[in-house]
């Protein structure tokens, strides 16, 4: 199945500028990073914060996590934290998680690449992704 990466942020040149909603302010509009992160997590069913992009990962852990998501043939959004130091630091605080990548499904923090791999191997990731289409 062909890879698809969903908008608003995936693979675009401005990964930290999601489509503006009426309630959400981007940082350029005076919003803060934490609320921007909350908006990103809420507005993307599957979201990975990673180093690089799924096509050009810049770290082995991020590459592995993106490959796992690719294997399901579903679209997902990504944020390249290397393009934005505020996001890179802010997501660690937002999730209370010290490392990148970080994966969110349906607004819930799943964990990093080790957890994603383990959930892939034991079938829990498939279950979580199946639930999205119900």
């Amino acid at each position: 199945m062909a890879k698809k990466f969903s908008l608003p942020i995936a693979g675009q040149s401005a990964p930290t500028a999601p489509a503006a909603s009426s309630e959400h302010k981007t940082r350029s509009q005076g919003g803060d990073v934490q609320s921007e992160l909350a908006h990103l997590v809420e507005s993307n069913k599957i979201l990975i914060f990673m180093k690089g992009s799924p096509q050009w990962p810049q770290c082995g852990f991020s590459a592995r996590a993106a490959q796992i998501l690719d294997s399901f043939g579903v679209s997902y959004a990504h944020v390249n934290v290397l393009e934005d130091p505020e996001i890179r630091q802010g997501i660690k605080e937002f999730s209370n998680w010290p490392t990148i990548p970080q994966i969110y499904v349906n607004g819930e923090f799943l964990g990093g690449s080790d957890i994603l791999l383990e959930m892939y191997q034991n079938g829990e990731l498939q279950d979580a992704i199946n639930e999205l289409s119900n």
Partner: protein
Amino acid sequence: MTPEQLQALIRRSLPDAEVHAEDLTGTRDHWRLTVISEAFEGERLVAQHRMINEALAAQLKDNTIHALSLKTYTPARWAEAN
């Protein structure tokens, strides 16, 4: 960091922890840790990993540990796996 230091830090939070540390790059800052502890019993994976992340929070923050790969087991699961 050395494997002994990593184990000592983790045992401050999880006194029964058995820690196997593998230096992934030979630079002592990229680690793969296997941690076995009763404390993981009944906890979700994300909670299990948080326990380790919190035990090593200072070293992760100041980049003494640059990359960390974790695998957690309860003693029962560790016995099954080996």
